[in-house]
């Protein structure tokens, strides 16, 4: 009997999915290439043609550094130019290039106010020729996010709203509902000690706070590498500590 019921549920789920995707282009998903993370997402990856929200945790809700790099790692793995909408010009392009998003691919839009910012975000999503659109914003209302989600669905372009607030107290706004497909919070975790003085690869606590069609989950992962990929920390993967790979570092 349970088998029959679950088959029935599967059938219903497929029907609902078909209804949801009636006027959406089938564009697939972007896997993170981390098995645990992909397993927690419907379809095995981050849905393309959808709006996703990312915010930093703790101090980073104001700083917006980890959240921006997380977004950069996602769009870096898609082909094509990227539109990055900002209001505060403090994003440092070399860091994006270290996450795999080269300077030839990013077009920055410095919008004066929230209204212009949302208009640029939506225009970028509607265009359809971009790899993705990233927008750093503090406010994202239900109405605005629904418009953006529809624009993303129509064009198949991924939209990433990097939520960043002026004051830590305003970050409570992140609890408000929006039409985004997923909601992520990225915060810093202490990195693994190296056998020599110095700093290893940064480590993030990545919380999937809300996801349409799946449960919330959280992960501790190594931050984006040169190609924008996340990785399972070596000791958690039950392997011996990996030899130091990646970039050359300044000696202490």
């Amino acid at each position, binding site marked *: 009997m349970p088998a029959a019921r679950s088959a029935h549920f599967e059938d219903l789920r497929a029907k609902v999915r078909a209804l949801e995707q009636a006027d959406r282009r089938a564009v697939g998903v972007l896997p993170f290439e981390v098995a645990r993370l992909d397993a927690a997402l419907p379809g095995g990856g981050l849905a393309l043609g959808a709006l996703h929200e990312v915010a930093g945790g*703790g101090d*980073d809700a104001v*700083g*917006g*550094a*980890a*959240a*921006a*790099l*997380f977004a950069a790692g996602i769009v870096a793995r898609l082909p*094509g*130019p990227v*539109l990055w909408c900002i209001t505060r*010009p*403090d*994003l*440092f*392009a*070399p*860091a*994006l*290039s*270290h996450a795999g998003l*080269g*300077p*030839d691919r*990013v*077009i*920055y*839009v*410095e*919008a*004066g106010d929230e209204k*212009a910012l949302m*208009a*640029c975000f939506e*225009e*970028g999503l509607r*265009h*359809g*020729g*971009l790899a993705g659109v990233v927008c750093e914003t503090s406010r994202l209302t239900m109405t605005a996010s629904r418009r953006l989600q529809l624009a993303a669905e129509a064009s198949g372009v991924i939209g990433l709203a990097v939520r960043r607030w002026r004051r830590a107290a305003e970050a409570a706004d992140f609890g408000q509902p929006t039409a985004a497909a997923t909601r992520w919070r990225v915060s*810093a*975790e*202490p*990195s693994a*000690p*190296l056998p020599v*003085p*110095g*700093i*290893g690869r*940064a480590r993030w606590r990545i919380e999937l706070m809300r996801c349409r069609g799946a449960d919330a989950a959280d992960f501790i992962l190594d*931050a984006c590498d*040169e190609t924008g990929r996340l990785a399972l920390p070596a000791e958690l993967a039950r392997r011996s500590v990996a030899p130091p790979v990646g*970039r*050359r*570092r*300044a000696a*202490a």
Partner: protein
Amino acid sequence: MTACNAAAAGSGARVGMAATQAQALIPGLDVRDADPHGDAEALDRLALWAMHRYAPVCQADPPDGLAIDVTGAAHLQGGEPALLRDLAARLQGVGVTSRGVVGPTLGAAHAVARFRADQSLIADDGVDAALSPLPLEALRLPADLPVGLRRMGFERIGDVAHRPRAPLQLRFGAELGRRLDQAYGRSGEPLIPVEAPETPRVERVFAEPIGAPETLARYAGALAEALCGQLETRGLGARRLDWLCYRVDNRIEAVRVGLAQPVRDVRRLTRLLTDKIETIAPGFGIDRMTLAASAAEPLNWRPAAARLGAEVAPDVSMLVDTLANRIGADRLYRLSPVESDVPERSTRKVAPLSAPTGVSWTPDWPRPTRLFRKPEPIETIALLPDNPPTHFTWRGVRRRIRRADGPERIFGEWGRRDAEMRAVRDYFQVEDDAGERFWLFRAGDGEDATTGSQAWFIHGRFG
């Protein structure tokens, strides 16, 4: 004598004097023949330049003025004061002394530019205050009128502006009232926009004035189509469109649209024009429209992909144009690498559609995701000369440093500024207890006081 420079005026020369008298007054005076025709032509060229640079509606205002309708165009230069500064600096650069004023009416701006040195912006409600103390000559009256008015005891504009109009009109004619009304904005004063004869231009005149946004959009499309036909025959593509709507009350509503690449696609041009319809105030209606490609460049079709099956790069120029016309072209850019070790100088804004260079920043050195515009001072405990701090306090929060990497020594660029001759910064990447990473630096090498103040700063956050 028709004109003299400031040095000559300081020595006693006056406009209207006989040239021989001035020569007798000032030894070694450089006298040149007046060339009114050449002056007028030069002024027209200047108006044309201003039209290209600032706003679609510009008019030469002989003998020595330039009238620019900056409505809706000033924000592209960063506001009215910035526009005036830019204009003055550029004129200065070619050796033209200028005085610029932005005002709600041409008459008021004209008067204040010539008769007040202390004001360059007139507020919408400040016309009366600005004009009242000025002499009557500021009103652009025929030469004999101010003399006659003075005889009646009127010295300043303020004296006549609020008098009953009828007796004045009876005595001095309609000209005084007309000029007063123009200066105070009670009657319109249309500018006749300067235009270059070679500009591709189409025009449409309406028997009945139009005003509804849908109608405007329809005719914008019709004009764009006609203009594209003209561009096609000449093998050009538009880089800038000036759409002028002449209202029945003689005012001109101007829309300027810029394009990142030469374009003669009717659909795209129409889309860009219709985006701007909300900025047009049709008033009682529009009876004439012109659309000109005030900047055009050769455009030849070429195949999109060289080989069958080759990947076609997505065309984002339409998106760039749409966004640039909405928020301003200078706020849309790519950041390209610069050969400089100083982090603030390692990026440069380039046009969003400039050719990809394939060059990137070196991946060898860590760089923060957020670079603060100004490094912020922090309090630290650190061993000199080259150990990272053990603690630091930033914005009132004390953080213990668990791991650190550095120093990465960056030397000042003495080639750029003398002050950086010996300057040194030692950068450290540090991680605190919670795992947050920061970019700290010490100004100076930790030993030699000439290399910097040895104070610590925070310059960025890592993701």
